[in-house]
Protein backbone atom coordinates (compact mmCIF):
# COMPACT_ATOMS: atom_id res chain seq x y z
CA UNK A 1 0.00 0.00 0.00
CA UNK A 2 1.31 3.44 -0.90
CA UNK A 3 -0.11 6.50 0.81
CA UNK A 4 0.73 10.12 0.22
CA UNK A 5 -0.79 13.60 0.23
CA UNK A 6 0.11 16.60 -1.89
CA UNK A 7 -1.42 19.91 -2.95
CA UNK A 8 -1.26 21.35 -6.44
CA UNK A 9 -1.95 24.96 -7.51
CA UNK A 10 -5.24 25.31 -9.40
CA UNK A 11 -7.72 28.04 -10.31
CA UNK A 12 -10.52 28.35 -7.73
CA UNK A 13 -13.71 26.37 -8.36
CA UNK A 14 -17.04 27.97 -7.52
CA UNK A 15 -18.51 25.09 -5.54
CA UNK A 16 -22.19 24.48 -6.47
CA UNK A 17 -24.52 25.14 -3.56
CA UNK A 18 -26.65 22.02 -4.07
CA UNK A 19 -23.75 19.58 -3.72
CA UNK A 20 -21.70 18.58 -0.71
CA UNK A 21 -19.54 16.01 -2.48
CA UNK A 22 -19.06 14.10 -5.73
CA UNK A 23 -17.88 10.53 -6.27
CA UNK A 24 -16.72 8.70 -9.38
CA UNK A 25 -15.50 5.16 -9.97
CA UNK A 26 -15.30 2.17 -7.69
CA UNK A 27 -12.48 0.32 -5.92
CA UNK A 28 -12.09 -2.66 -8.24
CA UNK A 29 -9.25 -4.24 -10.18
CA UNK A 30 -7.70 -1.66 -12.53
CA UNK A 31 -10.08 0.94 -11.17
CA UNK A 32 -10.27 3.59 -8.45
CA UNK A 33 -12.73 5.80 -6.60
CA UNK A 34 -12.37 9.55 -6.49
CA UNK A 35 -14.14 11.75 -3.92
CA UNK A 36 -14.36 15.53 -4.28
CA UNK A 37 -15.09 17.54 -1.14
CA UNK A 38 -14.92 21.29 -0.49
CA UNK A 39 -11.78 22.65 1.18
CA UNK A 40 -12.41 26.29 2.00
CA UNK A 41 -9.01 26.76 3.68
CA UNK A 42 -7.01 26.83 0.46
CA UNK A 43 -9.17 28.03 -2.47
CA UNK A 44 -6.25 28.05 -4.89
CA UNK A 45 -5.04 24.49 -4.24
CA UNK A 46 -6.23 21.00 -5.16
CA UNK A 47 -5.40 18.94 -2.06
CA UNK A 48 -4.95 15.23 -2.85
CA UNK A 49 -4.90 12.21 -0.54
CA UNK A 50 -3.98 9.03 -2.39
CA UNK A 51 -4.07 5.43 -1.18
CA UNK A 52 -2.98 2.89 -3.76
CA UNK A 53 -2.63 -0.88 -3.45
CA UNK A 54 0.22 -0.80 -5.98
CA UNK A 55 3.38 0.83 -4.56
CA UNK A 56 6.13 2.45 -6.57
CA UNK A 57 4.18 4.72 -8.93
CA UNK A 58 4.24 7.97 -6.98
CA UNK A 59 5.89 9.90 -9.83
CA UNK A 60 3.14 8.86 -12.28
CA UNK A 61 0.48 9.84 -9.73
CA UNK A 62 2.00 13.26 -9.15
CA UNK A 63 2.24 13.86 -12.90
CA UNK A 64 -1.39 12.85 -13.54
CA UNK A 65 -2.71 14.91 -10.62
CA UNK A 66 -0.62 17.97 -11.46
CA UNK A 67 -1.82 17.77 -15.05
CA UNK A 68 -5.46 17.68 -13.94
CA UNK A 69 -4.98 20.55 -11.49
CA UNK A 70 -3.54 22.75 -14.22
CA UNK A 71 -6.17 21.80 -16.85
CA UNK A 72 -9.26 22.25 -14.63
CA UNK A 73 -10.36 24.83 -12.10
CA UNK A 74 -10.34 22.65 -9.02
CA UNK A 75 -8.85 25.02 -6.44
CA UNK A 76 -10.56 24.55 -3.06
CA UNK A 77 -11.24 20.89 -3.75
CA UNK A 78 -10.06 18.10 -1.48
CA UNK A 79 -9.58 14.94 -3.53
CA UNK A 80 -9.67 11.53 -1.84
CA UNK A 81 -8.51 8.53 -3.87
CA UNK A 82 -8.69 4.79 -3.18
CA UNK A 83 -6.90 2.97 -5.96
CA UNK A 84 -6.63 -0.66 -6.97
CA UNK A 85 -4.16 -0.48 -9.84
CA UNK A 86 -5.77 1.98 -12.26
CA UNK A 87 -3.50 3.29 -15.01
CA UNK A 88 -3.00 7.06 -15.47
CA UNK A 89 -5.60 7.37 -18.24
CA UNK A 90 -8.29 5.84 -15.96
CA UNK A 91 -7.18 8.14 -13.12
CA UNK A 92 -7.67 11.18 -15.36
CA UNK A 93 -11.05 9.84 -16.55
CA UNK A 94 -12.35 9.38 -12.99
CA UNK A 95 -11.12 12.82 -11.92
CA UNK A 96 -12.94 14.30 -14.91
CA UNK A 97 -16.11 12.30 -14.08
CA UNK A 98 -16.10 13.48 -10.45
CA UNK A 99 -15.65 17.06 -11.74
CA UNK A 100 -18.59 16.58 -14.15
CA UNK A 101 -20.81 15.15 -11.40
CA UNK A 102 -20.02 18.19 -9.30
CA UNK A 103 -20.74 20.90 -11.84
CA UNK A 104 -23.80 19.19 -13.41
CA UNK A 105 -27.21 19.91 -11.97
CA UNK A 106 -28.20 16.23 -11.84
CA UNK A 107 -26.06 13.61 -10.09
Amino acid at each position, binding site marked *: *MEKFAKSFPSKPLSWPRSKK*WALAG*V*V*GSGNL*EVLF*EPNTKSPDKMECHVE*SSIPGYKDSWLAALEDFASNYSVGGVKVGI*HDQGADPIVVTLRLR*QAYDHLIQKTP
Partner: protein
Amino acid sequence: MSRSSLYHEQTARQRLSSLVDPDTFREFLPPPERVMSPYLPHLDVPVSFDDGLVTGRAALDGKPVYLAAQVGQFVGGSVGEVHGAKLTGILKASARDSIPCIILVESGGVRLHEGSSGEIGISEAMRAVFECRAKRVPTIAVIGADIGAYGGMGILSACCDFRIMTEHGRLGISGPIVIEKWMGKQAYDSSNRSLIWKTSGGKTKYLLNDANVLTHDDVTSIGGALKKLLSKSSPITLKTVKTRQHELESRLTRFGSTTCAEEIWNSLGIKDIKAASLASAPEFVAMTKSKHAKAKPETKKK
Protein backbone atom coordinates in the same frame (compact mmCIF):
# COMPACT_ATOMS: atom_id res chain seq x y z
CA MET B 1 -22.62 11.68 -19.32
CA SER B 2 -25.35 9.50 -20.79
CA ARG B 3 -27.21 7.32 -18.34
CA SER B 4 -28.27 3.80 -19.18
CA SER B 5 -31.68 2.60 -18.13
CA LEU B 6 -30.39 -0.99 -18.10
CA TYR B 7 -30.31 -1.94 -14.44
CA HIS B 8 -27.25 -4.17 -14.62
CA GLU B 9 -25.17 -1.48 -16.33
CA GLN B 10 -25.84 1.16 -13.69
CA THR B 11 -23.79 1.92 -10.59
CA ALA B 12 -25.36 1.31 -7.18
CA ARG B 13 -26.13 5.02 -6.70
CA GLN B 14 -27.59 5.36 -10.20
CA ARG B 15 -29.85 2.35 -9.54
CA LEU B 16 -31.17 3.89 -6.34
CA SER B 17 -31.80 7.35 -7.71
CA SER B 18 -33.39 6.10 -10.94
CA LEU B 19 -35.72 3.60 -9.20
CA VAL B 20 -37.25 6.09 -6.76
CA ASP B 21 -39.18 9.36 -7.29
CA PRO B 22 -36.85 12.02 -8.78
CA ASP B 23 -34.61 13.91 -6.34
CA THR B 24 -35.98 12.13 -3.27
CA PHE B 25 -33.03 9.89 -2.40
CA ARG B 26 -31.13 10.95 0.73
CA GLU B 27 -28.05 8.93 1.54
CA PHE B 28 -27.18 7.77 5.08
CA LEU B 29 -23.47 7.66 5.97
CA PRO B 30 -22.38 9.04 2.56
CA PRO B 31 -18.74 8.75 1.39
CA PRO B 32 -17.49 11.92 3.19
CA GLU B 33 -18.39 10.24 6.51
CA ARG B 34 -15.66 7.67 5.80
CA VAL B 35 -17.26 4.77 7.68
CA MET B 36 -14.86 2.18 6.29
CA SER B 37 -13.55 -1.30 6.98
CA PRO B 38 -11.05 -1.42 9.85
CA TYR B 39 -9.71 -4.80 8.66
CA LEU B 40 -8.80 -4.37 4.99
CA PRO B 41 -5.83 -1.97 5.55
CA HIS B 42 -4.12 -4.66 7.69
CA LEU B 43 -4.31 -7.02 4.72
CA ASP B 44 -3.04 -4.36 2.28
CA VAL B 45 -6.41 -4.37 0.52
CA PRO B 46 -7.74 -0.92 -0.43
CA VAL B 47 -10.84 0.35 1.38
CA SER B 48 -13.88 2.13 -0.05
CA PHE B 49 -15.50 5.31 1.30
CA ASP B 50 -18.88 3.56 1.70
CA ASP B 51 -17.60 0.00 2.32
CA GLY B 52 -19.53 -1.17 -0.76
CA LEU B 53 -23.02 -0.37 0.49
CA VAL B 54 -25.16 2.67 -0.30
CA THR B 55 -28.04 3.19 2.13
CA GLY B 56 -30.70 5.84 2.38
CA ARG B 57 -34.28 6.97 2.35
CA ALA B 58 -36.48 8.06 -0.54
CA ALA B 59 -40.05 8.22 -1.83
CA LEU B 60 -41.40 5.62 -4.24
CA ASP B 61 -44.79 6.33 -5.74
CA GLY B 62 -45.03 9.08 -3.12
CA LYS B 63 -44.56 6.65 -0.23
CA PRO B 64 -41.47 6.55 2.01
CA VAL B 65 -39.04 3.66 1.58
CA TYR B 66 -35.67 2.69 3.01
CA LEU B 67 -33.12 1.39 0.53
CA ALA B 68 -29.76 -0.32 0.38
CA ALA B 69 -27.68 -1.08 -2.72
CA GLN B 70 -24.57 -3.19 -2.82
CA VAL B 71 -21.56 -2.25 -4.95
CA GLY B 72 -20.68 -5.52 -6.67
CA GLN B 73 -17.37 -4.30 -8.01
CA PHE B 74 -15.92 -3.62 -4.55
CA VAL B 75 -14.61 -6.98 -3.20
CA GLY B 76 -17.51 -8.77 -4.93
CA GLY B 77 -20.16 -6.80 -3.05
CA SER B 78 -19.11 -8.76 0.00
CA VAL B 79 -20.49 -8.17 3.47
CA GLY B 80 -17.85 -7.05 5.96
CA GLU B 81 -18.46 -5.72 9.46
CA VAL B 82 -19.26 -2.14 8.41
CA HIS B 83 -21.23 -3.19 5.31
CA GLY B 84 -23.24 -5.62 7.46
CA ALA B 85 -23.84 -3.03 10.17
CA LYS B 86 -25.15 -0.52 7.59
CA LEU B 87 -27.46 -3.18 6.14
CA THR B 88 -28.70 -4.18 9.60
CA GLY B 89 -29.24 -0.51 10.47
CA ILE B 90 -31.45 0.19 7.46
CA LEU B 91 -33.52 -2.97 8.12
CA LYS B 92 -33.93 -2.09 11.81
CA ALA B 93 -35.00 1.42 10.82
CA SER B 94 -37.62 -0.17 8.55
CA ALA B 95 -38.95 -2.31 11.40
CA ARG B 96 -38.96 0.65 13.82
CA ASP B 97 -40.71 3.09 11.46
CA SER B 98 -42.90 0.53 9.60
CA ILE B 99 -41.46 1.68 6.28
CA PRO B 100 -40.77 -0.91 3.54
CA CYS B 101 -37.14 -1.87 2.90
CA ILE B 102 -35.78 -2.46 -0.60
CA ILE B 103 -32.40 -4.17 -0.96
CA LEU B 104 -30.62 -4.08 -4.32
CA VAL B 105 -28.53 -7.22 -3.93
CA GLU B 106 -25.22 -7.71 -5.72
CA SER B 107 -22.96 -9.86 -3.57
CA GLY B 108 -20.99 -13.07 -3.31
CA GLY B 109 -21.79 -13.20 0.42
CA VAL B 110 -19.60 -12.76 3.47
CA ARG B 111 -16.29 -10.87 3.02
CA LEU B 112 -13.83 -13.63 3.85
CA HIS B 113 -11.09 -11.09 4.73
CA GLU B 114 -13.13 -10.10 7.75
CA GLY B 115 -13.94 -13.63 8.93
CA SER B 116 -16.39 -13.93 11.79
CA SER B 117 -17.16 -10.20 11.79
CA GLY B 118 -18.63 -10.57 8.31
CA GLU B 119 -20.52 -13.74 9.27
CA ILE B 120 -22.00 -11.98 12.30
CA GLY B 121 -22.80 -8.89 10.22
CA ILE B 122 -24.85 -10.86 7.72
CA SER B 123 -26.57 -12.89 10.47
CA GLU B 124 -27.60 -9.71 12.27
CA ALA B 125 -28.99 -8.37 9.00
CA MET B 126 -31.03 -11.58 8.55
CA ARG B 127 -32.38 -11.25 12.06
CA ALA B 128 -33.39 -7.69 11.23
CA VAL B 129 -35.24 -8.99 8.12
CA PHE B 130 -37.30 -11.19 10.43
CA GLU B 131 -37.95 -8.22 12.76
CA CYS B 132 -39.53 -6.52 9.73
CA ARG B 133 -41.49 -9.60 8.77
CA ALA B 134 -42.81 -10.09 12.30
CA LYS B 135 -44.22 -6.54 12.06
CA ARG B 136 -45.53 -7.16 8.51
CA VAL B 137 -43.19 -4.50 7.10
CA PRO B 138 -42.38 -5.49 3.49
CA THR B 139 -38.79 -6.44 2.66
CA ILE B 140 -38.00 -6.77 -1.03
CA ALA B 141 -34.78 -8.04 -2.64
CA VAL B 142 -33.99 -6.96 -6.20
CA ILE B 143 -31.60 -9.35 -7.94
CA GLY B 144 -30.47 -8.33 -11.40
CA ALA B 145 -26.84 -7.25 -11.22
CA ASP B 146 -23.71 -8.94 -12.52
CA ILE B 147 -22.51 -10.64 -9.33
CA GLY B 148 -25.94 -12.07 -8.46
CA ALA B 149 -27.02 -13.03 -4.93
CA TYR B 150 -24.84 -15.75 -3.48
CA GLY B 151 -23.66 -17.04 -0.13
CA GLY B 152 -25.12 -15.25 2.87
CA MET B 153 -26.75 -12.65 0.63
CA GLY B 154 -28.51 -15.47 -1.26
CA ILE B 155 -29.89 -16.66 2.06
CA LEU B 156 -30.79 -13.13 3.14
CA SER B 157 -32.61 -12.55 -0.16
CA ALA B 158 -34.57 -15.77 0.41
CA CYS B 159 -35.51 -14.49 3.90
CA CYS B 160 -37.18 -11.37 2.46
CA ASP B 161 -40.92 -11.19 1.77
CA PHE B 162 -40.40 -10.89 -1.99
CA ARG B 163 -37.71 -11.27 -4.64
CA ILE B 164 -37.77 -9.40 -7.94
CA MET B 165 -35.39 -10.89 -10.49
CA THR B 166 -34.35 -10.04 -14.02
CA GLU B 167 -33.20 -12.61 -16.53
CA HIS B 168 -29.72 -11.29 -15.81
CA GLY B 169 -29.95 -12.07 -12.07
CA ARG B 170 -28.75 -15.19 -10.32
CA LEU B 171 -29.68 -16.54 -6.91
CA GLY B 172 -28.00 -19.34 -5.01
CA ILE B 173 -25.88 -20.33 -2.03
CA SER B 174 -22.51 -21.53 -3.33
CA GLY B 175 -21.34 -19.68 -6.41
CA PRO B 176 -20.56 -21.58 -9.64
CA ILE B 177 -16.77 -21.52 -9.15
CA VAL B 178 -17.10 -22.77 -5.58
CA ILE B 179 -19.26 -25.71 -6.68
CA GLU B 180 -16.83 -26.53 -9.49
CA LYS B 181 -13.88 -26.47 -7.08
CA TRP B 182 -15.62 -28.92 -4.73
CA MET B 183 -17.43 -31.20 -7.15
CA GLY B 184 -15.24 -31.07 -10.25
CA LYS B 185 -15.74 -29.63 -13.73
CA GLN B 186 -17.69 -32.72 -14.89
CA ALA B 187 -20.29 -32.11 -12.20
CA TYR B 188 -20.61 -28.34 -12.68
CA ASP B 189 -18.74 -26.37 -15.30
CA SER B 190 -18.59 -22.76 -14.12
CA SER B 191 -17.66 -21.53 -17.61
CA ASN B 192 -20.90 -22.93 -19.07
CA ARG B 193 -23.10 -19.83 -18.96
CA SER B 194 -26.19 -21.68 -20.19
CA LEU B 195 -25.84 -24.24 -17.39
CA ILE B 196 -25.24 -21.55 -14.74
CA TRP B 197 -28.28 -19.49 -15.76
CA LYS B 198 -30.52 -22.57 -16.16
CA THR B 199 -29.71 -23.58 -12.58
CA SER B 200 -29.54 -20.25 -10.76
CA GLY B 201 -30.79 -17.63 -13.25
CA GLY B 202 -33.90 -15.49 -12.97
CA LYS B 203 -36.07 -17.56 -15.32
CA THR B 204 -35.46 -20.82 -13.46
CA LYS B 205 -35.91 -19.15 -10.07
CA TYR B 206 -39.22 -17.69 -11.28
CA LEU B 207 -40.38 -21.12 -12.51
CA LEU B 208 -39.50 -22.65 -9.15
CA ASN B 209 -41.33 -19.86 -7.31
CA ASP B 210 -38.14 -18.66 -5.58
CA ALA B 211 -38.51 -15.33 -7.38
CA ASN B 212 -41.95 -13.71 -7.14
CA VAL B 213 -41.50 -11.39 -10.12
CA LEU B 214 -39.48 -11.70 -13.33
CA THR B 215 -38.96 -8.40 -15.16
CA HIS B 216 -37.03 -6.75 -17.96
CA ASP B 217 -33.52 -5.60 -17.09
CA ASP B 218 -34.53 -1.94 -16.88
CA VAL B 219 -35.30 0.42 -14.02
CA THR B 220 -38.80 1.29 -15.24
CA SER B 221 -39.93 -2.35 -15.13
CA ILE B 222 -38.25 -3.01 -11.80
CA GLY B 223 -39.70 0.21 -10.37
CA GLY B 224 -43.18 -0.83 -11.56
CA ALA B 225 -42.82 -4.21 -9.87
CA LEU B 226 -41.62 -2.57 -6.64
CA LYS B 227 -44.63 -0.22 -6.54
CA LYS B 228 -47.00 -3.19 -6.72
CA LEU B 229 -45.28 -5.01 -3.85
CA LEU B 230 -44.96 -2.08 -1.42
CA SER B 231 -48.46 -2.56 -0.03
CA LYS B 232 -48.10 -6.32 0.37
CA SER B 233 -46.32 -8.60 2.77
CA SER B 234 -45.80 -12.32 3.09
CA PRO B 235 -46.58 -13.22 6.71
CA ILE B 236 -44.76 -15.99 8.52
CA THR B 237 -47.37 -18.18 10.14
CA LEU B 238 -47.42 -21.90 10.90
CA LYS B 239 -49.62 -22.36 7.86
CA THR B 240 -47.38 -20.47 5.41
CA VAL B 241 -44.26 -22.20 6.74
CA LYS B 242 -45.93 -25.62 6.34
CA THR B 243 -47.01 -24.75 2.81
CA ARG B 244 -43.47 -23.70 1.90
CA GLN B 245 -42.04 -26.85 3.53
CA HIS B 246 -44.46 -28.95 1.49
CA GLU B 247 -43.44 -27.10 -1.71
CA LEU B 248 -39.77 -27.74 -1.04
CA GLU B 249 -40.36 -31.42 -0.18
CA SER B 250 -42.27 -32.00 -3.38
CA ARG B 251 -39.57 -30.16 -5.33
CA LEU B 252 -37.00 -32.53 -3.86
CA THR B 253 -39.11 -35.57 -4.73
CA ARG B 254 -39.72 -34.34 -8.27
CA PHE B 255 -36.32 -32.97 -9.14
CA GLY B 256 -33.90 -34.36 -6.53
CA SER B 257 -32.31 -36.82 -8.94
CA THR B 258 -32.49 -34.58 -12.01
CA THR B 259 -29.11 -33.94 -13.59
CA CYS B 260 -30.23 -31.50 -16.27
CA ALA B 261 -31.95 -28.18 -15.60
CA GLU B 262 -33.86 -28.44 -18.87
CA GLU B 263 -35.79 -31.41 -17.49
CA ILE B 264 -37.06 -29.13 -14.74
CA TRP B 265 -38.12 -26.51 -17.30
CA ASN B 266 -39.85 -29.29 -19.26
CA SER B 267 -41.78 -30.73 -16.37
CA LEU B 268 -42.81 -27.24 -15.23
CA GLY B 269 -44.57 -26.73 -18.54
CA ILE B 270 -41.89 -25.37 -20.89
CA LYS B 271 -42.14 -27.45 -24.05
CA ASP B 272 -39.93 -25.39 -26.35
CA ILE B 273 -36.71 -24.90 -24.36
CA LYS B 274 -34.98 -22.92 -27.10
CA ALA B 275 -37.83 -20.46 -27.54
CA ALA B 276 -38.11 -20.03 -23.76
CA SER B 277 -34.35 -19.43 -23.47
CA LEU B 278 -34.51 -16.67 -26.07
CA ALA B 279 -37.74 -15.14 -24.77
CA SER B 280 -37.66 -11.79 -22.95
CA ALA B 281 -38.75 -11.79 -19.32
CA PRO B 282 -42.39 -10.72 -19.99
CA GLU B 283 -42.65 -13.23 -22.88
CA PHE B 284 -41.32 -15.95 -20.59
CA VAL B 285 -43.85 -15.04 -17.90
CA ALA B 286 -46.65 -15.20 -20.51
CA MET B 287 -45.41 -18.59 -21.74
CA THR B 288 -45.51 -20.08 -18.28
CA LYS B 289 -48.64 -18.42 -16.96
CA SER B 290 -51.20 -20.90 -18.19
CA LYS B 291 -49.13 -24.00 -17.51
CA HIS B 292 -47.45 -23.30 -14.23
CA ALA B 293 -49.89 -22.58 -11.42
CA LYS B 294 -47.78 -20.47 -9.13
CA ALA B 295 -48.52 -20.66 -5.44
CA LYS B 296 -49.48 -17.22 -4.20
CA PRO B 297 -48.68 -16.77 -0.52
CA GLU B 298 -49.14 -13.00 -0.82
CA THR B 299 -51.88 -11.39 1.17
CA LYS B 300 -52.93 -7.80 1.48
CA LYS B 301 -51.36 -6.02 4.36
CA LYS B 302 -53.60 -5.80 7.40
